[in-house]
Protein backbone atom coordinates (compact mmCIF):
# COMPACT_ATOMS: atom_id res chain seq x y z
CA UNK A 1 0.00 0.00 0.00
CA UNK A 2 1.33 3.44 -0.89
CA UNK A 3 1.86 5.52 2.20
CA UNK A 4 2.34 9.30 2.29
CA UNK A 5 4.24 10.68 5.29
CA UNK A 6 4.88 14.34 6.03
CA UNK A 7 8.63 14.51 6.66
CA UNK A 8 8.09 17.47 9.01
CA UNK A 9 6.65 15.04 11.56
CA UNK A 10 9.93 13.10 11.76
CA UNK A 11 12.71 13.82 14.25
CA UNK A 12 15.75 15.87 13.30
CA UNK A 13 18.59 13.54 12.37
CA UNK A 14 16.38 10.54 11.65
CA UNK A 15 18.13 7.90 9.57
CA UNK A 16 15.78 6.08 7.27
CA UNK A 17 16.54 2.91 5.34
CA UNK A 18 15.15 1.38 2.20
CA UNK A 19 16.16 -0.92 -0.60
CA UNK A 20 15.51 1.77 -3.16
CA UNK A 21 15.53 5.52 -2.57
CA UNK A 22 13.86 7.54 -5.32
CA UNK A 23 14.29 11.31 -5.37
CA UNK A 24 11.09 12.79 -6.78
CA UNK A 25 7.47 11.55 -6.75
CA UNK A 26 6.58 12.87 -10.18
CA UNK A 27 5.42 10.67 -13.02
CA UNK A 28 8.85 9.06 -13.53
CA UNK A 29 9.39 8.35 -9.83
CA UNK A 30 5.88 7.00 -9.29
CA UNK A 31 6.06 4.84 -12.44
CA UNK A 32 9.38 3.45 -11.25
CA UNK A 33 7.80 2.74 -7.86
CA UNK A 34 4.92 1.01 -9.62
CA UNK A 35 7.44 -1.09 -11.52
CA UNK A 36 9.08 -2.07 -8.23
CA UNK A 37 5.77 -2.64 -6.44
CA UNK A 38 5.83 -6.40 -6.73
CA UNK A 39 9.52 -6.75 -5.88
CA UNK A 40 8.86 -7.14 -2.16
CA UNK A 41 11.51 -4.51 -1.49
CA UNK A 42 11.13 -1.31 0.50
CA UNK A 43 10.88 1.77 -1.71
CA UNK A 44 11.16 5.26 -0.25
CA UNK A 45 10.41 8.34 -2.37
CA UNK A 46 11.55 11.81 -1.35
CA UNK A 47 9.16 14.48 -2.60
CA UNK A 48 10.00 18.15 -2.26
CA UNK A 49 6.38 19.28 -2.30
CA UNK A 50 3.23 18.10 -0.61
CA UNK A 51 0.17 16.31 -2.00
CA UNK A 52 -0.67 19.65 -3.63
CA UNK A 53 1.87 22.18 -4.83
CA UNK A 54 2.58 25.11 -2.52
CA UNK A 55 4.05 28.57 -3.03
CA UNK A 56 6.94 27.92 -0.65
CA UNK A 57 7.94 24.72 -2.46
CA UNK A 58 7.50 26.36 -5.86
CA UNK A 59 9.81 29.19 -4.78
CA UNK A 60 12.63 26.64 -4.60
CA UNK A 61 12.44 26.49 -8.42
CA UNK A 62 13.72 30.03 -8.80
CA UNK A 63 16.92 30.59 -10.70
CA UNK A 64 18.29 32.40 -13.71
CA UNK A 65 17.28 31.38 -17.22
CA UNK A 66 18.75 32.73 -20.45
CA UNK A 67 16.46 31.66 -23.28
CA UNK A 68 17.17 34.34 -25.93
CA UNK A 69 14.26 35.13 -28.21
CA UNK A 70 11.99 32.47 -26.71
CA UNK A 71 12.07 34.01 -23.32
CA UNK A 72 10.50 37.32 -22.44
CA UNK A 73 12.50 38.99 -19.73
CA UNK A 74 10.81 38.57 -16.39
CA UNK A 75 8.86 35.45 -17.29
CA UNK A 76 9.53 32.91 -14.55
CA UNK A 77 10.36 29.98 -16.83
CA UNK A 78 12.11 27.92 -14.15
CA UNK A 79 9.26 28.37 -11.68
CA UNK A 80 6.30 28.03 -14.00
CA UNK A 81 7.41 25.09 -16.09
CA UNK A 82 7.66 22.55 -13.25
CA UNK A 83 5.62 21.60 -10.25
CA UNK A 84 6.88 20.41 -6.88
CA UNK A 85 4.29 18.11 -5.36
CA UNK A 86 2.96 14.56 -5.48
CA UNK A 87 2.61 13.73 -9.19
CA UNK A 88 5.05 16.47 -10.20
CA UNK A 89 4.78 18.51 -13.36
CA UNK A 90 2.57 15.87 -14.97
CA UNK A 91 -0.29 17.10 -12.78
CA UNK A 92 -0.42 20.19 -14.98
CA UNK A 93 0.37 18.70 -18.37
CA UNK A 94 -2.20 18.19 -21.04
CA UNK A 95 -2.25 14.44 -21.09
CA UNK A 96 -1.76 13.71 -24.74
CA UNK A 97 0.35 10.59 -24.82
CA UNK A 98 2.68 9.54 -27.56
CA UNK A 99 6.13 8.02 -27.35
CA UNK A 100 9.22 8.99 -29.25
CA UNK A 101 9.63 6.61 -32.19
CA UNK A 102 10.73 6.16 -35.78
CA UNK A 103 13.26 8.59 -37.19
CA UNK A 104 13.31 10.55 -33.94
CA UNK A 105 15.25 7.65 -32.37
CA UNK A 106 17.76 7.46 -35.20
CA UNK A 107 21.25 8.89 -35.40
CA UNK A 108 20.65 11.47 -38.13
CA UNK A 109 23.80 12.76 -39.85
CA UNK A 110 22.42 16.30 -40.06
CA UNK A 111 21.76 16.49 -36.31
CA UNK A 112 24.88 16.23 -34.15
CA UNK A 113 24.56 14.04 -31.04
CA UNK A 114 21.30 12.46 -32.26
CA UNK A 115 20.43 8.77 -31.89
CA UNK A 116 19.20 6.59 -29.04
CA UNK A 117 21.63 3.78 -28.17
CA UNK A 118 18.95 1.32 -27.02
CA UNK A 119 16.97 -1.23 -28.98
CA UNK A 120 13.80 0.21 -30.50
CA UNK A 121 11.69 -2.89 -30.14
CA UNK A 122 12.67 -3.17 -26.48
CA UNK A 123 11.55 0.44 -25.91
CA UNK A 124 8.31 -0.23 -27.79
CA UNK A 125 7.50 -3.06 -25.37
CA UNK A 126 7.87 -0.73 -22.41
CA UNK A 127 5.82 1.95 -24.14
CA UNK A 128 2.99 -0.56 -24.39
CA UNK A 129 3.30 -1.32 -20.67
CA UNK A 130 3.20 2.42 -19.90
CA UNK A 131 0.11 2.76 -22.11
CA UNK A 132 -1.51 -0.01 -20.08
CA UNK A 133 -0.83 1.90 -16.86
CA UNK A 134 -2.58 4.93 -18.34
CA UNK A 135 -5.42 2.95 -19.91
CA UNK A 136 -4.50 3.97 -23.44
CA UNK A 137 -3.14 0.71 -24.86
CA UNK A 138 -4.58 -0.83 -27.99
CA UNK A 139 -4.70 -0.24 -31.70
CA UNK A 140 -4.79 3.23 -33.15
CA UNK A 141 -7.76 4.25 -35.27
CA UNK A 142 -7.47 3.54 -38.99
CA UNK A 143 -5.99 6.54 -40.77
CA UNK A 144 -6.86 5.68 -44.34
CA UNK A 145 -9.38 8.50 -44.74
CA UNK A 146 -7.09 11.20 -43.41
CA UNK A 147 -5.12 13.35 -45.83
CA UNK A 148 -1.37 12.79 -45.90
CA UNK A 149 -0.55 15.09 -48.82
CA UNK A 150 1.00 12.45 -51.07
CA UNK A 151 2.70 10.89 -48.05
CA UNK A 152 4.74 14.05 -47.42
CA UNK A 153 3.20 14.15 -43.96
CA UNK A 154 2.24 11.07 -42.01
CA UNK A 155 -0.55 10.61 -39.51
CA UNK A 156 0.50 10.11 -35.93
CA UNK A 157 -1.86 9.61 -33.00
CA UNK A 158 -1.73 10.97 -29.50
CA UNK A 159 -3.93 9.31 -26.88
CA UNK A 160 -5.83 10.93 -24.05
CA UNK A 161 -6.39 8.95 -20.85
CA UNK A 162 -9.97 9.03 -19.57
CA UNK A 163 -8.83 9.98 -16.09
CA UNK A 164 -7.16 13.39 -15.97
CA UNK A 165 -5.02 12.83 -12.88
CA UNK A 166 -1.81 10.93 -13.54
CA UNK A 167 -1.54 10.00 -9.89
CA UNK A 168 -5.05 8.54 -9.99
CA UNK A 169 -4.08 6.55 -13.06
CA UNK A 170 -1.03 5.13 -11.32
CA UNK A 171 -2.79 4.38 -8.03
CA UNK A 172 -4.01 0.88 -9.02
CA UNK A 173 -0.45 -0.14 -9.87
CA UNK A 174 0.81 1.27 -6.57
CA UNK A 175 -2.08 -0.05 -4.48
CA UNK A 176 -0.76 -3.60 -4.43
CA UNK A 177 2.69 -2.51 -3.28
CA UNK A 178 3.86 -4.08 -0.07
CA UNK A 179 6.17 -1.33 1.07
CA UNK A 180 6.22 1.98 -0.78
CA UNK A 181 6.36 5.22 1.17
CA UNK A 182 6.44 8.80 -0.08
CA UNK A 183 7.98 11.37 2.24
CA UNK A 184 6.51 14.75 1.37
CA UNK A 185 8.22 18.07 2.16
CA UNK A 186 11.53 16.17 1.89
CA UNK A 187 14.03 18.04 -0.28
CA UNK A 188 17.11 16.06 -1.30
CA UNK A 189 20.08 18.36 -0.72
CA UNK A 190 23.11 16.12 -1.16
CA UNK A 191 24.13 12.79 -2.62
CA UNK A 192 26.81 11.49 -0.28
CA UNK A 193 29.43 9.23 -1.86
CA UNK A 194 31.93 7.01 -0.12
CA UNK A 195 35.25 8.32 -1.51
CA UNK A 196 36.92 4.94 -1.31
CA UNK A 197 34.19 2.75 -2.78
CA UNK A 198 32.79 5.34 -5.16
CA UNK A 199 29.24 4.37 -4.19
CA UNK A 200 26.42 6.44 -2.82
CA UNK A 201 26.01 5.77 0.89
CA UNK A 202 23.17 8.14 1.73
CA UNK A 203 21.10 11.05 0.59
CA UNK A 204 20.57 14.05 2.80
CA UNK A 205 17.15 15.67 2.80
CA UNK A 206 15.76 18.74 4.51
CA UNK A 207 12.34 20.22 5.11
CA UNK A 208 11.83 23.94 4.64
CA UNK A 209 10.49 24.12 8.14
CA UNK A 210 11.53 21.06 10.04
CA UNK A 211 14.09 18.33 10.40
CA UNK A 212 17.06 17.18 8.37
CA UNK A 213 17.09 13.49 7.51
CA UNK A 214 19.28 10.94 5.83
CA UNK A 215 18.21 7.97 3.74
CA UNK A 216 20.41 4.95 3.16
CA UNK A 217 19.52 2.46 0.46
CA UNK A 218 20.97 -0.20 -1.78
CA UNK A 219 20.26 1.79 -4.94
CA UNK A 220 19.36 5.42 -5.48
CA UNK A 221 17.40 6.87 -8.37
CA UNK A 222 17.18 10.55 -9.25
CA UNK A 223 13.72 11.22 -10.68
CA UNK A 224 13.40 14.89 -9.83
CA UNK A 225 13.16 16.22 -13.38
CA UNK A 226 15.91 17.12 -15.84
CA UNK A 227 16.71 20.41 -14.13
CA UNK A 228 16.61 19.31 -10.52
CA UNK A 229 18.40 15.99 -10.95
CA UNK A 230 21.30 17.76 -12.70
CA UNK A 231 21.33 20.45 -10.02
CA UNK A 232 21.53 17.87 -7.24
CA UNK A 233 24.38 16.02 -8.97
CA UNK A 234 26.34 19.24 -9.51
CA UNK A 235 25.70 20.52 -6.00
CA UNK A 236 26.88 17.28 -4.39
CA UNK A 237 30.49 18.33 -4.76
CA UNK A 238 32.05 17.82 -1.36
CA UNK A 239 33.91 14.63 -2.35
CA UNK A 240 33.99 15.13 -6.09
CA UNK A 241 34.54 18.84 -6.80
CA UNK A 242 32.86 18.72 -10.23
CA UNK A 243 29.82 17.00 -8.77
CA UNK A 244 28.58 13.44 -8.88
CA UNK A 245 29.00 11.67 -12.22
CA UNK A 246 30.53 14.76 -13.81
CA UNK A 247 34.06 13.56 -14.52
CA UNK A 248 33.64 14.45 -18.19
CA UNK A 249 31.76 17.72 -17.62
CA UNK A 250 28.52 16.32 -19.10
CA UNK A 251 26.09 16.78 -16.19
CA UNK A 252 23.64 19.56 -17.01
CA UNK A 253 24.73 19.85 -20.66
CA UNK A 254 22.46 19.30 -23.68
CA UNK A 255 19.52 20.88 -21.84
CA UNK A 256 16.55 21.17 -24.16
CA UNK A 257 12.86 21.92 -24.28
CA UNK A 258 10.39 21.57 -27.12
CA UNK A 259 9.46 24.71 -29.03
CA UNK A 260 5.85 25.39 -29.95
CA UNK A 261 4.56 27.92 -32.43
CA UNK A 262 1.18 28.62 -34.00
CA UNK A 263 2.23 28.96 -37.60
CA UNK A 264 -1.02 29.84 -39.34
CA UNK A 265 -4.44 28.72 -40.51
CA UNK A 266 -5.47 25.77 -42.63
CA UNK A 267 -8.41 26.01 -45.03
CA UNK A 268 -9.81 22.85 -46.62
CA UNK A 269 -13.09 23.43 -48.47
CA UNK A 270 -15.48 20.52 -48.16
CA UNK A 271 -13.32 18.40 -45.86
CA UNK A 272 -14.84 19.22 -42.45
CA UNK A 273 -16.19 15.72 -41.84
CA UNK A 274 -12.93 14.03 -42.77
CA UNK A 275 -10.89 16.23 -40.46
CA UNK A 276 -12.74 15.43 -37.21
CA UNK A 277 -10.09 12.92 -36.01
CA UNK A 278 -7.63 15.82 -35.83
CA UNK A 279 -9.65 17.04 -32.86
CA UNK A 280 -10.72 13.83 -31.17
CA UNK A 281 -12.01 10.38 -32.00
CA UNK A 282 -13.18 7.66 -29.59
CA UNK A 283 -11.40 4.32 -29.73
CA UNK A 284 -12.70 0.81 -29.14
CA UNK A 285 -10.83 0.70 -25.81
CA UNK A 286 -12.64 3.73 -24.45
CA UNK A 287 -9.94 6.39 -24.57
CA UNK A 288 -9.89 9.26 -27.03
CA UNK A 289 -7.23 9.65 -29.68
CA UNK A 290 -6.30 12.64 -31.74
CA UNK A 291 -4.63 12.67 -35.13
CA UNK A 292 -1.62 14.86 -35.81
CA UNK A 293 0.70 15.21 -38.76
CA UNK A 294 4.42 14.98 -38.83
CA UNK A 295 6.77 15.30 -41.78
CA UNK A 296 7.54 11.88 -43.22
CA UNK A 297 10.99 10.44 -42.57
CA UNK A 298 11.70 10.89 -46.28
CA UNK A 299 10.84 14.58 -46.12
CA UNK A 300 12.92 15.07 -42.97
CA UNK A 301 15.92 13.40 -44.61
CA UNK A 302 15.58 15.31 -47.88
CA UNK A 303 15.40 18.70 -46.20
CA UNK A 304 17.51 17.84 -43.13
CA UNK A 305 14.77 18.92 -40.76
CA UNK A 306 14.49 18.54 -37.05
CA UNK A 307 11.46 16.41 -36.21
CA UNK A 308 8.15 18.12 -35.60
CA UNK A 309 4.51 17.39 -34.86
CA UNK A 310 1.64 19.48 -36.21
CA UNK A 311 -1.54 19.93 -34.21
CA UNK A 312 -4.77 21.42 -35.50
CA UNK A 313 -6.94 23.59 -33.29
CA UNK A 314 -10.28 25.31 -33.45
CA UNK A 315 -10.22 28.67 -35.15
CA UNK A 316 -11.81 31.59 -33.39
CA UNK A 317 -14.04 33.35 -35.94
CA UNK A 318 -12.78 36.69 -34.70
CA UNK A 319 -9.30 35.80 -35.86
CA UNK A 320 -10.27 34.57 -39.31
CA UNK A 321 -7.54 35.61 -41.75
CA UNK A 322 -8.15 38.26 -44.43
CA UNK A 323 -9.46 37.02 -47.79
CA UNK A 324 -10.64 33.74 -46.23
CA UNK A 325 -13.92 33.61 -48.18
CA UNK A 326 -12.13 34.55 -51.39
CA UNK A 327 -9.36 31.98 -51.00
CA UNK A 328 -11.99 29.39 -50.12
CA UNK A 329 -13.73 30.14 -53.42
CA UNK A 330 -10.44 29.92 -55.27
CA UNK A 331 -9.62 26.59 -53.64
CA UNK A 332 -13.08 25.26 -54.49
CA UNK A 333 -12.60 26.24 -58.12
CA UNK A 334 -9.49 24.10 -58.42
CA UNK A 335 -10.39 21.36 -55.92
CA UNK A 336 -10.52 17.82 -57.22
CA UNK A 337 -12.30 16.29 -54.22
CA UNK A 338 -14.38 17.22 -51.23
CA UNK A 339 -17.98 17.98 -50.45
CA UNK A 340 -19.73 21.14 -51.49
CA UNK A 341 -20.39 22.12 -47.91
CA UNK A 342 -18.56 21.90 -44.59
CA UNK A 343 -15.36 23.83 -45.07
CA UNK A 344 -12.68 23.10 -42.55
CA UNK A 345 -10.79 25.96 -40.92
CA UNK A 346 -8.22 25.33 -38.19
CA UNK A 347 -5.19 26.82 -36.56
CA UNK A 348 -1.95 24.95 -37.14
CA UNK A 349 0.53 24.63 -34.29
CA UNK A 350 3.92 23.13 -34.79
CA UNK A 351 6.00 21.54 -32.04
CA UNK A 352 9.66 21.28 -32.98
CA UNK A 353 12.20 18.87 -31.58
CA UNK A 354 15.13 20.82 -30.10
CA UNK A 355 18.66 20.27 -31.37
CA UNK A 356 21.12 18.63 -28.95
CA UNK A 357 23.84 21.12 -28.12
CA UNK A 358 26.28 20.75 -25.23
CA UNK A 359 26.52 24.54 -24.90
CA UNK A 360 22.94 24.62 -23.64
CA UNK A 361 23.36 23.72 -20.01
CA UNK A 362 22.38 23.82 -16.39
CA UNK A 363 25.03 25.14 -14.03
CA UNK A 364 24.99 26.30 -10.43
CA UNK A 365 24.41 29.99 -9.81
CA UNK A 366 25.88 32.03 -7.01
CA UNK A 367 22.54 32.58 -5.25
CA UNK A 368 21.33 30.00 -2.79
CA UNK A 369 17.84 28.88 -1.89
CA UNK A 370 16.48 28.71 1.69
CA UNK A 371 17.87 25.18 2.00
CA UNK A 372 21.37 26.44 1.22
CA UNK A 373 21.52 24.86 -2.23
CA UNK A 374 22.87 26.86 -5.19
CA UNK A 375 20.09 27.97 -7.51
CA UNK A 376 20.03 26.97 -11.16
CA UNK A 377 21.68 29.05 -13.85
CA UNK A 378 20.23 27.88 -17.19
CA UNK A 379 21.70 28.73 -20.58
CA UNK A 380 19.61 27.85 -23.66
CA UNK A 381 20.15 30.50 -26.24
CA UNK A 382 20.83 29.15 -29.72
CA UNK A 383 17.61 28.33 -31.55
CA UNK A 384 18.66 28.96 -35.15
CA UNK A 385 18.08 25.41 -36.35
CA UNK A 386 14.73 25.19 -34.57
CA UNK A 387 13.64 28.50 -36.12
CA UNK A 388 14.74 27.36 -39.55
CA UNK A 389 12.84 24.08 -39.11
CA UNK A 390 9.72 26.02 -38.11
CA UNK A 391 9.87 28.07 -41.29
CA UNK A 392 10.83 25.20 -43.58
CA UNK A 393 8.22 22.76 -42.24
CA UNK A 394 5.48 25.39 -42.41
CA UNK A 395 6.35 26.10 -46.01
CA UNK A 396 6.52 22.42 -46.91
CA UNK A 397 3.07 21.83 -45.41
CA UNK A 398 1.63 24.79 -47.30
CA UNK A 399 3.10 23.48 -50.55
CA UNK A 400 1.88 19.95 -49.88
CA UNK A 401 -1.66 21.14 -49.16
CA UNK A 402 -1.64 23.33 -52.26
CA UNK A 403 -0.20 20.56 -54.42
CA UNK A 404 -3.06 18.30 -53.39
CA UNK A 405 -5.50 21.04 -54.48
CA UNK A 406 -7.46 20.30 -51.30
CA UNK A 407 -7.00 23.73 -49.78
CA UNK A 408 -4.55 26.46 -48.87
CA UNK A 409 -2.51 27.49 -45.85
CA UNK A 410 -2.31 30.97 -44.37
CA UNK A 411 1.19 31.73 -43.10
CA UNK A 412 1.10 35.36 -42.04
CA UNK A 413 4.29 35.51 -40.08
CA UNK A 414 6.55 32.91 -41.59
CA UNK A 415 9.67 35.08 -41.67
CA UNK A 416 9.18 36.19 -38.09
CA UNK A 417 8.04 32.84 -36.70
CA UNK A 418 10.71 32.51 -34.02
CA UNK A 419 9.36 35.67 -32.43
CA UNK A 420 6.08 33.86 -31.78
CA UNK A 421 7.60 30.59 -30.62
CA UNK A 422 7.50 29.51 -26.99
CA UNK A 423 9.13 26.74 -24.96
CA UNK A 424 6.68 24.07 -23.80
CA UNK A 425 8.22 23.31 -20.43
CA UNK A 426 9.32 19.77 -21.33
CA UNK A 427 12.84 19.72 -19.92
CA UNK A 428 15.21 16.96 -20.97
CA UNK A 429 18.63 15.51 -21.74
CA UNK A 430 20.73 17.00 -18.90
CA UNK A 431 21.81 13.52 -17.76
CA UNK A 432 21.67 11.91 -21.17
CA UNK A 433 22.24 8.27 -21.92
CA UNK A 434 25.38 7.23 -23.79
CA UNK A 435 27.53 4.18 -24.37
CA UNK A 436 30.66 6.26 -23.87
CA UNK A 437 31.10 8.10 -20.52
CA UNK A 438 32.69 10.99 -22.41
CA UNK A 439 29.43 11.70 -24.22
CA UNK A 440 26.81 11.30 -21.53
CA UNK A 441 26.01 10.82 -17.87
CA UNK A 442 24.19 7.47 -17.63
CA UNK A 443 24.79 4.16 -19.36
CA UNK A 444 22.24 2.06 -21.23
CA UNK A 445 20.78 0.86 -17.91
CA UNK A 446 20.33 4.49 -16.78
CA UNK A 447 23.13 4.00 -14.26
CA UNK A 448 25.47 6.96 -13.72
CA UNK A 449 28.65 5.88 -15.54
CA UNK A 450 30.97 6.41 -12.59
CA UNK A 451 28.65 5.49 -9.67
CA UNK A 452 27.47 1.88 -9.64
CA UNK A 453 24.43 2.31 -7.37
CA UNK A 454 23.14 5.66 -8.66
CA UNK A 455 20.54 5.79 -11.45
CA UNK A 456 18.49 8.48 -13.18
CA UNK A 457 14.85 8.24 -14.32
CA UNK A 458 12.82 10.70 -16.37
CA UNK A 459 13.38 12.73 -19.51
CA UNK A 460 16.83 13.78 -18.28
CA UNK A 461 18.21 10.50 -19.66
CA UNK A 462 16.81 11.04 -23.15
CA UNK A 463 19.58 11.51 -25.76
CA UNK A 464 17.09 13.54 -27.82
CA UNK A 465 13.65 14.79 -26.86
CA UNK A 466 11.63 14.37 -30.04
CA UNK A 467 8.52 16.37 -30.78
CA UNK A 468 5.87 14.49 -28.81
CA UNK A 469 4.99 14.97 -25.14
CA UNK A 470 7.76 13.19 -23.21
CA UNK A 471 5.61 11.72 -20.43
CA UNK A 472 4.88 8.33 -22.01
CA UNK A 473 8.51 7.77 -23.02
CA UNK A 474 9.67 8.78 -19.53
CA UNK A 475 7.24 6.27 -18.05
CA UNK A 476 8.44 3.55 -20.44
CA UNK A 477 12.05 4.23 -19.52
CA UNK A 478 11.16 4.16 -15.80
CA UNK A 479 9.54 0.72 -16.21
CA UNK A 480 12.62 -0.44 -18.07
CA UNK A 481 14.80 0.79 -15.20
CA UNK A 482 12.54 -0.97 -12.67
CA UNK A 483 13.05 -4.26 -14.49
CA UNK A 484 16.79 -3.70 -14.45
CA UNK A 485 16.85 -2.96 -10.73
CA UNK A 486 14.79 -6.05 -9.96
CA UNK A 487 17.07 -8.20 -12.13
CA UNK A 488 20.15 -6.71 -10.50
CA UNK A 489 18.88 -7.45 -7.00
Amino acid at each position, binding site marked *: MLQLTDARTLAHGDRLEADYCIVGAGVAGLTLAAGLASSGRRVLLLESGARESSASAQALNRGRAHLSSLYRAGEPYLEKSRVRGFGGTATEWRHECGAIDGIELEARPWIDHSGWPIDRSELAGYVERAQNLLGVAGDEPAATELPDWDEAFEITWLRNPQEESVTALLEPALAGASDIEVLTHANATEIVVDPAAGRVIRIRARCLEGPELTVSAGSYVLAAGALESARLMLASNRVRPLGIGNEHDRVGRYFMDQIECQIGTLLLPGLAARMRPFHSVPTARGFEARAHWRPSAKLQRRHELLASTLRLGRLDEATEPPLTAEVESLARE*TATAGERVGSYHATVTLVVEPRPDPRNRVTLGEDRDPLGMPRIDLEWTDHEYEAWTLRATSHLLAEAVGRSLAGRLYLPRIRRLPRYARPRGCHACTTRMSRDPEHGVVDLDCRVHSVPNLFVAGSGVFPTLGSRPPMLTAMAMALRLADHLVRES
Partner: protein
Amino acid sequence: MTLSRRQLLTHFATGIGVLAVSGCRGRDLTPLIDALVDLAITRDSLSAIGEAYLSDREGLPEQGASSIEALAERLAIDLDWSVDQTRHELSDRLVRRIRSDFRDSKTVRVRGWLLSETEARWAALVALAPAGREG
Protein backbone atom coordinates in the same frame (compact mmCIF):
# COMPACT_ATOMS: atom_id res chain seq x y z
CA MET B 1 -0.91 50.41 -49.18
CA THR B 2 -4.12 48.84 -50.45
CA LEU B 3 -5.44 50.11 -53.76
CA SER B 4 -9.10 50.18 -54.59
CA ARG B 5 -10.35 48.22 -57.55
CA ARG B 6 -10.92 51.48 -59.42
CA GLN B 7 -7.35 52.66 -58.71
CA LEU B 8 -5.95 49.36 -59.80
CA LEU B 9 -7.80 49.35 -63.05
CA THR B 10 -6.62 52.86 -63.75
CA HIS B 11 -3.08 52.02 -62.74
CA PHE B 12 -2.54 48.78 -64.54
CA ALA B 13 -5.08 48.54 -67.28
CA THR B 14 -4.71 51.66 -69.33
CA GLY B 15 -5.90 50.79 -72.79
CA ILE B 16 -7.78 47.76 -71.65
CA GLY B 17 -10.93 49.10 -73.22
CA VAL B 18 -9.67 48.10 -76.60
CA LEU B 19 -11.07 44.82 -77.73
CA ALA B 20 -7.85 43.10 -78.59
CA VAL B 21 -4.80 42.45 -76.42
CA SER B 22 -1.64 41.43 -78.20
CA GLY B 23 1.20 39.46 -76.70
CA CYS B 24 4.86 40.17 -77.41
CA ARG B 25 4.81 37.52 -80.11
CA GLY B 26 2.07 39.43 -81.85
CA ARG B 27 -0.54 36.89 -80.89
CA ASP B 28 -4.01 38.09 -80.11
CA LEU B 29 -4.46 37.06 -76.48
CA THR B 30 -8.00 38.35 -76.19
CA PRO B 31 -9.50 34.83 -76.50
CA LEU B 32 -7.26 33.63 -73.70
CA ILE B 33 -8.28 36.50 -71.43
CA ASP B 34 -11.92 35.83 -72.18
CA ALA B 35 -11.49 32.14 -71.54
CA LEU B 36 -9.64 32.65 -68.23
CA VAL B 37 -12.26 35.13 -67.04
CA ASP B 38 -14.92 32.67 -68.10
CA LEU B 39 -13.29 29.94 -66.00
CA ALA B 40 -13.69 32.04 -62.86
CA ILE B 41 -16.89 30.76 -61.30
CA THR B 42 -16.72 33.31 -58.51
CA ARG B 43 -15.28 36.30 -60.28
CA ASP B 44 -15.60 38.69 -57.34
CA SER B 45 -13.58 36.43 -55.10
CA LEU B 46 -10.89 35.92 -57.68
CA SER B 47 -10.79 39.67 -58.37
CA ALA B 48 -10.31 40.44 -54.68
CA ILE B 49 -7.34 38.07 -54.54
CA GLY B 50 -5.99 39.53 -57.77
CA GLU B 51 -6.29 43.07 -56.43
CA ALA B 52 -4.43 42.07 -53.26
CA TYR B 53 -1.73 40.43 -55.35
CA LEU B 54 -1.32 43.50 -57.53
CA SER B 55 -1.40 45.83 -54.57
CA ASP B 56 1.32 43.84 -52.81
CA ARG B 57 3.49 44.27 -55.90
CA GLU B 58 2.84 47.94 -56.45
CA GLY B 59 6.13 49.80 -56.57
CA LEU B 60 8.23 46.65 -57.02
CA PRO B 61 10.64 46.41 -59.98
CA GLU B 62 8.60 43.62 -61.56
CA GLN B 63 5.44 45.69 -61.46
CA GLY B 64 5.50 45.85 -65.25
CA ALA B 65 4.89 42.10 -65.27
CA SER B 66 1.52 42.83 -63.71
CA SER B 67 -0.07 44.52 -66.72
CA ILE B 68 -2.88 42.53 -68.27
CA GLU B 69 -0.81 42.04 -71.40
CA ALA B 70 2.14 40.70 -69.46
CA LEU B 71 -0.08 38.49 -67.34
CA ALA B 72 -1.86 37.09 -70.39
CA GLU B 73 1.43 36.49 -72.18
CA ARG B 74 2.91 34.72 -69.20
CA LEU B 75 -0.17 32.57 -68.70
CA ALA B 76 -0.26 31.75 -72.41
CA ILE B 77 3.26 30.36 -72.13
CA ASP B 78 2.76 28.58 -68.81
CA LEU B 79 -0.51 27.00 -69.95
CA ASP B 80 0.82 26.25 -73.43
CA TRP B 81 -2.25 28.00 -74.77
CA SER B 82 -3.41 27.91 -78.35
CA VAL B 83 -6.51 29.49 -79.76
CA ASP B 84 -8.09 26.17 -80.64
CA GLN B 85 -7.99 24.91 -77.05
CA THR B 86 -11.34 23.99 -75.58
CA ARG B 87 -12.51 25.42 -72.29
CA HIS B 88 -12.10 22.01 -70.70
CA GLU B 89 -8.52 21.68 -71.95
CA LEU B 90 -7.63 25.12 -70.64
CA SER B 91 -9.18 24.37 -67.26
CA ASP B 92 -7.29 21.10 -67.06
CA ARG B 93 -3.99 22.80 -67.92
CA LEU B 94 -4.64 25.52 -65.36
CA VAL B 95 -5.23 23.00 -62.57
CA ARG B 96 -2.19 20.96 -63.55
CA ARG B 97 -0.05 24.10 -63.64
CA ILE B 98 -1.24 25.17 -60.19
CA ARG B 99 -0.37 21.74 -58.87
CA SER B 100 3.10 21.81 -60.44
CA ASP B 101 3.73 25.33 -59.11
CA PHE B 102 3.26 24.03 -55.57
CA ARG B 103 5.47 21.06 -56.37
CA ASP B 104 8.24 23.30 -57.78
CA SER B 105 7.99 25.95 -55.04
CA LYS B 106 6.71 28.53 -57.53
CA THR B 107 4.58 30.16 -54.90
CA VAL B 108 3.71 33.63 -53.73
CA ARG B 109 2.20 34.95 -50.51
CA VAL B 110 -0.91 37.07 -50.92
CA ARG B 111 -1.99 38.69 -47.67
CA GLY B 112 -0.39 35.75 -45.87
CA TRP B 113 -1.91 32.97 -48.01
CA LEU B 114 0.55 30.77 -49.86
CA LEU B 115 -0.76 30.59 -53.43
CA SER B 116 0.68 29.24 -56.66
CA GLU B 117 2.18 31.88 -58.96
CA THR B 118 -0.18 30.78 -61.72
CA GLU B 119 -3.34 31.09 -59.68
CA ALA B 120 -2.21 34.49 -58.38
CA ARG B 121 -1.61 35.69 -61.98
CA TRP B 122 -4.97 34.25 -63.04
CA ALA B 123 -6.64 36.17 -60.20
CA ALA B 124 -4.80 39.36 -61.16
CA LEU B 125 -5.85 38.98 -64.79
CA VAL B 126 -9.46 38.53 -63.74
CA ALA B 127 -9.18 41.65 -61.55
CA LEU B 128 -7.85 43.68 -64.45
CA ALA B 129 -10.30 42.45 -67.05
CA PRO B 130 -13.10 44.93 -67.68
CA ALA B 131 -16.50 44.10 -66.25
CA GLY B 132 -18.75 42.33 -68.71
CA ARG B 133 -15.82 40.57 -70.32
CA GLU B 134 -16.75 37.16 -68.93
CA GLY B 135 -18.49 34.81 -71.23
